[in-house]
């Protein structure tokens, strides 16, 4: 075997060119970057679920506190829109907002609401019931909505709970 043929075989086995290595590394780094993105997404999700769990507990707490308050006060005794913060050190990042909104009795009598025969209905027994129901809804039924909001990085997040509350105190006399 001549030296030149030996060299040629050697050369053919001598591995990659620089360009090939660079290309391979480039592709690898793209893949690694992708994995990295996915992982940091996961971190964010975990933090998010942590916040959600905390916020849900706090929102439920506020709802129960509202119900406890309503045992002593009438619905009119609460402000329609109230906000505040949580006293506890651990939950300083969270803020709450409570909204009380009226509910229309129309949901019970869909046909009688907004129809042209509205005024005539007042004379029929049906209309009578409707007006009573309207009064009850006006005084004793509220939709309570609790919103807990917090900051996550630079994004605002919030979670809302709502329920209908019927106060059996001070029902209007028939």
């Amino acid at each position, binding site marked *: 075997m001549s*030296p030149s043929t030996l*060299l040629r075989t050697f050369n053919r086995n001598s591995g990659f060119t*620089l360009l090939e*290595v*660079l290309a391979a*590394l*480039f592709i*690898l*780094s793209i893949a*690694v*970057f992708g*994995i*990295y993105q996915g*992982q*940091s997404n*996961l*971190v964010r999700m*975990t*933090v998010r*679920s*942590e916040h959600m*769990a*905390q916020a*849900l*507990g*706090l929102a*439920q*707490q506020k709802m*129960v*506190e509202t*119900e*406890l308050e309503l*045992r*002593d006060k009438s619905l009119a005794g609460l402000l329609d829109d109230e906000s505040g913060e949580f006293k*506890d050190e*651990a*939950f300083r990042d969270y803020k709450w907002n409570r909204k009380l909104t009226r509910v229309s009795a129309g949901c019970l009598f869909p046909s009688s609401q907004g129809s042209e025969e509205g005024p005539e209905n007042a004379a029929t027994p049906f209309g009578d019931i409707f007006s009573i129901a309207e009064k009850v809804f006006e005084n004793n039924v509220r939709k309570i909505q609790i919103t807990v909001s917090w900051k996550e990085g630079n994004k605002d997040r919030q979670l809302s709970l709502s329920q209908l509350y019927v106060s059996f105190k001070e029902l209007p006399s028939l």
Partner: protein
Amino acid sequence: MMRKRLGGFTLIEVLAALFLFSLLTLGVSSSVREISKLSSRIKIRQATVVSGITAFDRIQRDLRMAFNERLRNSSSWFESDSTSLGPDLRFTTWESPTVLLFTQRTPGLAAVRYWLEKADDGTMNLMRSQVEINRASDLEKQAPEIVGQGILKLEFEFYQGNTGQWLKSWDSKQSTTTGLFPRAVRVRLSSVDPSVPEPDRKEKTLNLETTVLVINEWEDRN
């Protein structure tokens, strides 16, 4: 000519190639390290969240279904006092509907007890035991289950209906003026993944707090 072909790269070429190669390798390896760090952080975070939320939910569920049998006033009770480790809570409650459905056991009422026990890693385990209500005296002897690990703190507060006060402990036998049961119970729970070393625990703690309304017919009717 032969010598020239065997000469290969110049020193500069080799250095440049090495430099480029090392730069790229460094980038890739550091991001790989970053990824593994991240994933261990995720694991810790998730373990904390899961164990905390599981324990928290379990207590809430039992409290929501707390059973106040006021009429016969014999077999239902609600007690909580503090030990050195934390609260020891015992009360009667409805068993879970699923248990009722599958075991067809009557009467479907149970006594449960929650307490904390020291674990080896310096955190505490939340223990729960449950017996059928007619064997309530065996509650202490019953084999407990661990419902939460890595608990750092557990606190209860009890809302006394007629005075509107929050109490630290509750004894249904002495608080009969307000009904046997509290009107609402506030639960505070702090947990951490037990594998986190002691000094880092403080910032990795998950704090949860909520208030549960306890159905209390006795009080409602009076």
